[in-house]
């Protein structure tokens, strides 16, 4: 076991970088880019931790992970205990360790952050969960009395999986309904293999199934059965069906053949494995010169996927500047390293095509920043007469999503706001209808995996207190 290093020396230690696949090589494969810490890296990094009490990092974690405790176990080289410590509050550690924006959460409030070298909590979480997966470490759950209460969870993304797992651990009988043929939601259809390998999603979903959670795929709540009907069969319902519908810019040429929504492009590649066409049957097209509109994480995923599918040139256009780009700093850096070109302060106004529907170019206008708008960011304004034609033959639209109305339409008395998102109590995730709770992107618009996990946890607690105090949807008829 490694000894605890004296604090002054600990504070002199530098942050341990994580090895990554070489940018030149990785643009030709779909393998994971960051390679993960080795045992020695993890122990070194864990030794830096000051074990603050109270720990600020925990307050920054929506999944409420006992961060200093698990890091301490790494120092002690007791990785199994470290893993079990994480699992006490987070059911999806291998995923969170990879895709959480730790720099905005736990690491942001780490005392080392002021020195620019926060503990790399995400990398440590990833190391521990990868180690546990290889060792097949099992969680030993205390014997709990099964509660004869049924909970339906709509959607098997991060919010749904988390809520289901937490409730199953409390003894509830939980069934997840998933519209697609594979569980995981955005983790499966949205985030690419090179950022989140699908075997990791599968393994974490399998662990949740081992807790007794049933997962019904190919079941579109709202069409196969409505929320109201589920209410007749279940005592409580958690709606976590995701943001769903892709947004378009409503500019001419948007329905040309080689204009994709990021959702379609990524779903074909990730869920349907079109990047392995024709070994897998679903086709995907990629142009020689691809442009992605938008600068969020989804835009980075689409741009980097296009590159790996063989595009010669990939550009990202965004109407604001790099400062305002919503993508993680790390994702933009990865995209830049791979040779993706960014055109900031650029707004597409028209996509050009030929009579067969092929894209031949995209007309853009240059922007400049004006006064701050309601979001507090400086408003981009077009520079008159600065229009130019960008030579591209494929466009991927990654400007965000809106609420898909299918679930809401089948849920009497569950109120949505004017954008179609379910309205909830921030703390309990309760909707306007007793016994029905909601979380994740369908309550907040496009957000992060970790905020969805946080919602799932809050909802699980609220559902437990609702059911423990004798509540049940089955007794009620919607008004």
């Amino acid at each position: 076991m490694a000894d605890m290093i004296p604090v002054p020396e600990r504070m002199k230690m530098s942050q341990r970088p994580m090895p990554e696949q070489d940018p030149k090589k990785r643009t030709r494969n779909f393998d994971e880019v960051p390679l993960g810490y080795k045992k020695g890296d993890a122990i070194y990094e864990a030794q830096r931790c000051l074990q603050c009490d109270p720990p600020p990092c925990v307050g920054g974690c929506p999944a409420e992970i006992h961060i200093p405790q698990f890091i301490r176990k790494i120092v002690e080289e007791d990785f199994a205990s470290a893993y079990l410590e994480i699992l006490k509050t987070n059911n999806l550690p291998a995923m969170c360790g990879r895709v959480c924006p730790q720099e905005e959460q736990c690491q942001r409030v780490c005392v080392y952050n002021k020195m620019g070298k926060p503990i790399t909590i995400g990398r440590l979480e990833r190391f521990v969960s990868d180690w546990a997966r290889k060792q097949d470490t099992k969680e030993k759950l205390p014997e709990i009395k099964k509660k004869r209460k049924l909970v339906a969870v709509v959607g098997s993304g991060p919010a749904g999986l988390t809520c289901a797992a937490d409730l199953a651990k409390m003894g509830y009988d939980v069934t997840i309904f998933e519209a697609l043929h594979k569980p995981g939601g955005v983790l499966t259809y949205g985030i690419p293999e090179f950022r989140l390998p699908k075997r990791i999603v599968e393994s974490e979903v399998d662990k949740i199934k081992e807790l007794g959670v049933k997962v019904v795929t190919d079941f579109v709540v709202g069409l196969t059965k409505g929320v109201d009907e589920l209410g007749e069969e279940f005592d409580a319902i958690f709606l976590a069906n995701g943001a769903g519908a892709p947004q378009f810019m409503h500019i001419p040429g948007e329905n040309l053949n080689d204009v994709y929504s990021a959702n379609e492009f990524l779903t074909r590649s990730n869920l349907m494995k079109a990047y392995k066409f024709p070994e897998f049957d679903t086709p995907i097209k990629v142009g020689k010169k691809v442009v992605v509109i938008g600068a969020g994480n989804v835009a980075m995923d689409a741009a980097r996927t296009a590159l790996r599918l063989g595009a010669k040139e990939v550009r990202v256009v965004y109407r604001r500047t790099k400062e305002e780009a919503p993508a993680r700093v790390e994702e933009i850096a990865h995209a830049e390293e791979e040779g993706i070109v960014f055109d900031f302060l650029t707004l597409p106004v028209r996509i050009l095509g030929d009579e067969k529907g092929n894209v031949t170019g995209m007309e853009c206008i240059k922007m400049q920043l004006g006064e701050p708008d309601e979001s507090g960011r400086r408003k981009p304004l077009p520079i008159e007469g600065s229009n130019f034609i960008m030579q591209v033959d494929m466009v991927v639209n990654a400007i965000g999503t809106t609420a898909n109305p299918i679930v809401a339409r089948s849920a009497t008395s569950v109120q949505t706001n004017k954008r179609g998102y379910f309205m909830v109590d921030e703390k309990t995730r309760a909707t306007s209808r007793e016994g029905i709770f909601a979380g994740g992107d369908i309550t907040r618009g496009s957000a992060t995996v970790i905020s969805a996990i946080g919602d799932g946890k809050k909802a699980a607690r609220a559902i437990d207190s609702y059911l423990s105090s004798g509540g049940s949807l089955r007794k009620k008829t919607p008004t």
Partner: protein
Amino acid sequence: MPKIITKREIAPNIISLKVTAPLIAKRVKPGQFIILMTDERGERIPLTIADYDRENGWIRIVFQVVGKTTAQLSQMNEGDELFSLVGPLGNPSKISNYGTVVTVGGGTGIACVYPITRALKEAGNRVIAIIGAKTKDLIIMEEEMRKASSELLITTDDGSYVRKGFVTEVLDEVLRREEDVKKVWVIGPAPMMKAACEVTKPYQVEMIVSLNAIMVDGTGMCGSCRVTVGGETKFVCVDGPEFNGHLVDWPEFMNRLARYGRQEKLSFEPHEKSYGEKNG
């Protein structure tokens, strides 16, 4: 798992399957569709539900072998299970007692128009049904359509059965002869639906088409199936599949249908070859 309970080749290369799907059978209404996958590596393809039995929990689909997925589906047998089946998707047809209505089915579109025809007649309409195909052998579901309609008119492109001519010609004659047709449903290949829209335009009759767009999820998530209708972008899967045919941007729709032509060929050819080797 959805199991194939009966399989019939009802015309050369046109297969009819009954599949167990109690939840879908319970809720489906005419005009809706399903998405299926034959196996884990397969593509998700949409197919209209041609018939259903709520009590016995099955749905019926009818398809022509046109590519790899339909070829694989055609090689599955009674007792086999589909990898994935989801539905009912899309909006149901608006069925009501309108008076006199016309339904038109071309090729496998006949199977799609069948449940709509039946429901319209059950709702009290006088339903004139027109069905057509290239040749006699490809006229499907004639007896079912006769029962489901008030009057059945049949035509073949080559004149090998009943009469020679396209369904659009027969539709034109019906609209000329009938005083007060309230609505026309036309389902078939895109060029046929487009031509039918041109025929019906001068009669100022409400014209409904069911679009067979390329889809992935079929629940409004990907936008693969988008189409311009009356100048607005619509998703076939959640806003359709039925639209006012006179407002559809047909050139754009047909371009988008051909998006993966080259890849589809690439995927189908090796499959045909290996199937030929196995069976030839």
